[in-house]
């Protein structure tokens, strides 16, 4: 199908419809408002459900209910709203319910700003809900990659029976780019949701219960271990990343989302100057793509993390690096997108050259 020019948020909304989303529950917050706005109009055309909830807390609990009843459910929000959704996300992980969460990140802490930011890396990858759980999270770079992931996310969530988050910065939500929403994407073979509590116990011949409560310690530990097995499978199978010109690189920049886009042009400039620089771009934020680091060449003596935060993903880089390579960090905060020149200068400094 031909590409269409769409605003990021609207493209994500349409991608969700195409991914088979049955129901959306959300609450207004900038910079993601075009997601619910688009869906409030278009979900009806497909005979699907749209509800504007009274709060993010209510929205995520509606998601929990609808997901428990077997539907493919979406919610979208931005940083402070995601903070409020953490309890519900923990409940869904605990009750093994699938759902897709779009997070169009803005600046923080607190009310912060409505400018693009990656300051929620920790919130996205660690979650703020209680208990031993993980949310499979993607940090895509382009709008095309974002919509492809939104469409796949419903399958992935159903497969693992776990929430999946698409974390983009406000720039991806707000910019316009040509996208193809009908291209081939991988489809998964999924079993029927015979566990759903959907009011069909008569038909089914047994009653279903959706619950995260396990009062006996043995029972809960067993449940925790079962969840862990699922997370291990995600770590094994779901790590996604892209490596750009890393084969001969002396220095590798680690960046995701909008920053990775900027870094691509930095690589071109620096390579012309003879500086061998590459890019390791995580696509999954959780699980963090450790496997990509194993593939780096011996020549890569240094890793430079660049983020729109003050060093959150950098902690993961430090962890997988295990002291092997020299590490450096460059970050901008407050909703500022680092410019190619500043990143290039940072690299020049690190390799001992002088800033251009």
């Amino acid at each position, binding site marked *: 199908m031909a590409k269409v020019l769409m605003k990021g948020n609207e493209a994500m909304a349409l991608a969700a419809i195409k991914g088979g989303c049955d129901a959306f529950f959300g609450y207004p917050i900038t910079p993601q408002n075009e997601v619910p706005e688009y869906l409030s109009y278009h979900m009806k055309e497909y005979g699907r459900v749209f509800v504007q909830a009274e709060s993010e807390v209510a929205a995520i*609990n509606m998601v929990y209910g609808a997901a428990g009843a077997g539907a493919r459910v979406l919610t979208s929000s931005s940083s402070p709203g995601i903070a409020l959704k953490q309890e519900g996300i923990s409940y869904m992980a605990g009750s093994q319910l699938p759902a897709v969460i779009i997070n169009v990140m803005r600046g923080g802490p607190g009310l912060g700003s409505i400018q693009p930011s990656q300051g929620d890396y920790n919130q996205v990858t660690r979650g703020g809900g209680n208990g031993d759980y993980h949310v499979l999270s993607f940090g895509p770079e382009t709008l095309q990659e974002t919509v492809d992931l939104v469409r796949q996310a419903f399958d992935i969530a159903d497969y693992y029976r776990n929430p999946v988050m698409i974390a983009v910065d406000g720039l991806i939500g707000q910019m316009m780019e040509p996208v193809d929403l009908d291209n081939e994407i991988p489809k998964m073979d999924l079993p029927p949701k015979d566990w759903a*509590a959907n009011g069909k116990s008569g038909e089914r011949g047994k009653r279903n219960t959706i619950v995260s*409560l396990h009062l006996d310690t043995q029972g809960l530990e067993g449940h925790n271990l079962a969840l862990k097995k699922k997370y291990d499978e995600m770590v094994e199978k779901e790590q996604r990343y892209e490596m750009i010109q890393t084969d001969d690189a002396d220095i590798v920049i680690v960046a995701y989302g909008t920053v990775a886009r900027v870094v691509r042009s930095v690589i071109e400039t620096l390579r012309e100057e003879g500086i061998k620089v590459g890019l390791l771009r995580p696509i999954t934020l959780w699980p963090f793509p450790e496997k990509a680091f194993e593939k780096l060449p011996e020549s890569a003596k240094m890793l430079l993390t660049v983020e729109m935060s003050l060093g959150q993903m950098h902690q993961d880089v430090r962890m997988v690096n295990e002291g092997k390579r020299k590490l450096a960090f460059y970050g901008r905060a407050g909703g500022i997108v680092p410019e190619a020149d500043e990143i290039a200068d940072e690299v020049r400094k690190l390799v001992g050259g002088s800033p251009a």
Partner: protein
Amino acid sequence: MKAQTIYKPTEGLTERQLTYCPGCTHGIIHKLIGEVLVEQGLLDTAVGIASVGCSVMSYEFFNCDTQQAAHGRAPAVATGIKRVNPEATVFTYQGDGDLASIGLAEIVHSAHRGENITVIFVNNAIYGMTGGQMAPTTLIGQKTTTSPRGREQAEAGLPLRMSEMLATVPGATYLERVSVHDPKHIRKAKKALQKAFDVQTKKQGFSMIEFISTCPVNWGMTPQDSLNWAVDQMIPYYPLGLFKDATKEEN
């Protein structure tokens, strides 16, 4: 003489032993719900939402599909279930701490949206499960573990009357307060429940039945004294009766 069955437990409840203290009226309310679901032929299509409180395990007691909700969020969970499964009979079972305190926004807004669900609200004027702390519904002068000198209006305000409050919400359809302190009132309470589920079956919108309930353990009373206290202290402040019936207004 041949043995005759004159009474048996309702099939609306599972065989799991209830976890409530002796003399607690949660059990009577469960039984009524189970009976009504069976009698109205709704058990096979029902989804019950357990909340957080002494009734947290009710997902094990109602003999239908169930889902356990976070503290206060049962009406939002019910909304999600009902919207994607409009043919299911969806009900929540919530205490007063759950519904009138932490879950105030969710209950008001599901009523406001006119969600076609049924809410069972069990008002025992206290946080039972956590050991008897003050609830928004705790009476003036009532001693709890966090109002050890008795609730004072100056500090904690006056007890919240949820049925009266929701009656002011335009979207609500059916609201009634009942009690289960004697057989006569139990029969009346059952009628109210029948009506509430009937409202849902007829797709007429939001219904809530508030039950005056006892907590002998945290009130520090015998079961009989607590029934008397409910009648003498609670009902005067929380009068029984119908607060809204929009099915009549429509006719």
